[in-house]
């Protein structure tokens, strides 16, 4: 077990290295750089050229890459041209917001998925089940950004139940209990928007697993022994059906990254996703490369996590 984890971690190193080269080259391949937008006759073109030189934008790519990666290894991801602050600090600020949003989304996802999945699996082919599967198909078909916009309009503007932007009310004082509540209040609607969409996959998995499991022989045995229907479902079926859900957990984390990028922009929620899109537009390369790298690492860790969980909960597939 530990050997596997260590081996996977070792494999991660070349993976991340390769990823970093790809990310860097792709960022460089975008037309323009952070200074392209400075079309301003009041600024001397020579001064802009000097700034390019100072930022090392004129060096060949491998030298730029080397400078970047050698600093990155030491934890210095460079300076954001736009925000005029270290990228690590900038991302640190935004990452907390994204982490809270992801956590809330994850909790909501399972809060929705597990009851729906169980109901749908236990009472399959009833009207209730059809309603739930109907919802999952709509969920599969509906693009996240549309759903998010509709949610924002309906619950944010039409009913005014939720705030319509930002991560916290203006003027809230950090540290107080009301500040925490205010933050939760702000992330509830975006988290719900993502959860409503991402949950459908899990609902379907759970449903199929339950339907599958309840036809297995050992369930028949349990019933034959006289176990009550609720005991059969809660103890025998559910535990076995949750296996793939647990295994899916790591990938779920990865999927959240994609979700938060759009939702953060729609709800103007200042997290990493919003920073990412904004930085691409203004060619703030240091920020873009750093975030892609972080996303990449998160993805790799997510899949590792999935494998580990899977091997813990299901001894059958433990790799030697």
């Amino acid at each position, binding site marked *: 077990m530990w050997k596997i984890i260590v081996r996977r971690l070792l494999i991660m190193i070349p993976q991340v290295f390769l990823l970093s080269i790809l990310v860097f080259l792709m960022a460089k391949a*975008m*037309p*323009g750089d952070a200074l*392209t*937008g*400075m*079309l*301003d*006759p*009041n*600024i*001397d*073109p020579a*001064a802009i050229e000097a700034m390019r030189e100072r930022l090392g934008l004129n060096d060949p790519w491998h030298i730029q890459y080397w400078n970047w990666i050698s600093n990155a290894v030491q934890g210095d991801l460079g300076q954001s041209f*736009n*925000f*005029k*602050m270290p990228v690590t600090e900038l991302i640190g*600020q935004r990452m907390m917001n994204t982490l809270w949003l992801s956590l809330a989304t994850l909790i909501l996802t399972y809060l929705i998925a597990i009851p729906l999945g169980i109901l749908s699996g236990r009472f399959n082919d009833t009207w209730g089940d059809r309603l739930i599967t109907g919802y999952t198909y709509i969920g599969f078909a509906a693009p996240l950004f549309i759903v998010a*916009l509709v949610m*924002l*309009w309906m619950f*944010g*503007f039409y009913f*005014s139940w939720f705030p*319509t*932007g*930002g*991560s*916290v*009310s*203006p*003027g*809230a*004082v950090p540290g107080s209990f009301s500040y925490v509540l205010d933050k939760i209040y702000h992330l509830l609607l975006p988290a719900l928007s993502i959860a409503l969409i991402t949950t459908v996959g899990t609902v379907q998995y759970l449903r199929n697993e339950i339907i599958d499991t309840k036809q297995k022989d050992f369930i028949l045995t349990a019933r034959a022994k006289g176990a009550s229907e609720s005991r059969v479902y809660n103890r025998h079926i559910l535990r076995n059906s949750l296996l793939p859900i647990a295994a899916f957990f790591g990938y779920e984390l990865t999927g959240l990254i994609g979700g938060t990028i759009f939702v953060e*922009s*729609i709800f*103007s929620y*200042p997290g990493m996703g*919003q*920073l990412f*899109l*904004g930085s691409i*537009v*203004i*060619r703030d390369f240091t920020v873009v490369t750093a975030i892609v790298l972080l996303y990449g690492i998160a993805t790799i860790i997510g899949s590792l996590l999935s494998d580990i969980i899977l091997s813990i909960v299901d001894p059958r597939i433990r790799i030697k």
Partner: protein
Amino acid sequence: MTKRKTAKTMLVSLMLVLSLAVTACGSGNNEAAEPSATTAATDAAATTAPTTAPASEDGLYNIADFSNVKTNQGEALEGGTLNYGLVSDTPFEGTLNFNFYSGNPDSKVLEWFDEGLLTWDKDYVYTNDGAATYEVSEDGRTFTFTIRDNVNWHDGKPVTAEDWLFAHEVIGNPAYDGPRYGSDFTNIEGMEAYHDGTAKTISGIKVLNEKQLEITYIKSTPSLLTGSIWTYPLAKHIFGAMDVAKISASPEVRQKPIGFGPFKVESIVPGESVVYVKNEDYWRGAPKLDKVVLKVVPPTTVVQELKAGNIDLVDSFPIDQFPDNSGLSNVEYLGAVDRAYTYVGFKLGKWDAAKSVVAPDPNAKMGNVALRKAMWQAVDNDAVGKNFYHGLRWNATTLIPPSHPEFHDDSNPGMPYDPEAAKKTLEDAGFKMNGEFRTNPDGTPLTINFISMTGSDIAEPLAQYYVQSWKAIGLNVTLEMVEFNTFYDRVGSNGEDDPSVDVYQGAWTVGIDVDPQGLYGRDAIYNFPRYANEESDRLMAEGVSEEAFDVEKRKEIYKEWQALMVEEIPVFPTLYRAALVPVNNRVLNYAIGDGTGIYLNELAVSADKGIAAK
């Protein structure tokens, strides 16, 4: 033609709005604004007749029907909180000091709590109504400024001449990391020596006493009076001991910024919102409002926020959303002519990087003025403005937009739309039809490459319209739509012009000073057509000479220059633009534009909450 929304955002964020610069922008939509609305509001303001946008005939609007001053409805409350929407796709950067900021959103945050020492009138000329007054010496080179006695920083310390000098010293310091150091500063005596490190002080700036400063400029020009003076002091008692390179990242800039404006910053959520409270000690008098809450609002939801009354004011409004929302009952739209124009440019040469001058090529494909003239005659920009922009953009005539009413030459008709005349122009110049298209006068085939920016929904249809119009007079024009960065790369923002580009469609935001040398001067890299002409050089030089201090004379000069550009056509302007800003009906004493004499300390509200749309 339209720059993409994102590109726009990016551009704007890099644009130094207050630096009076001429800035490139895509011809895109200015996206920004939010509606606000809540319930309640049964007071006087809510019951007065709703102000709607000027009526439109056939869905068309005219900027002349909009006022730039808000109609007051109801009585001002004592105190109150105003909600301000900063319309932007991205968070504001948070470099909250006029001496350092570089993004437009930051400048919107700054305007509430800090200001320049001089104000200007509607013609953008400095007045003596601001926090400081000025006197000019006989030769027009030496300015003596006197800061008013009651002008104090938010911490109670007086704003001094020393602070003003300090701002110049910091910007002139080689370690300075902001974008301000440029020709405005090198025009100060001794500034370059100070910047190079050969002098310890700036010889042209003298502190006469605590409140008086004297600055001597190398060259006297009327531009000095229209924005070339650096009027933002930097609090020396706070920043004086700091390392210049570290000021912009310091907490005194980012978290607890200081100014001497009508409001003080109470708290900041980085990138999202700012709460201001009134500055009782403001030199024009304590503000009427108790609080202002600034919040970043994405252009996609701004209309909803305005409708709900959650937001009273915005910094800008996406004009393409206006026709659908012109009837909102709870807001009044203010309008002004934008300091910008869209244009079609012709490549007439190259950039000589070694000499840093344009190198016009007499044999350029677009070198024949008859060809350029015909292309202008062939396009109906009046129809473009009506069909694509509901009249909120309209036919442009000269290269000085009507946002500068003093210098824009109304009597110059530009080039009237006349496709028959265009054909005749080409015919007379020897561009004969050969099959479907015309050839060069020497009989070689003529294919013109036209590039335009992607972005808004109408970018491509609009560019296609131009291509078709040119086809109708027999010109074979191929269109390529490119993204903002690529576009300016190829047009030559780095001086490496793409030789395959013959014609392009771009846009400029112009500075408050009319001097066009930054865009059409011989040594301007942003002179993308790479056009130069002795007569034009002479006129532009005269426009900033000492004799141009006489406004009548200066008008005369620029009138001549505008006429010359209509004759020579290195570029032709296509559209002028309107800027609209919705304001909630409860807001009193507000105006957009310059020289209105209405200041933020007078801003008030007539109801506790924003009025919601019916």
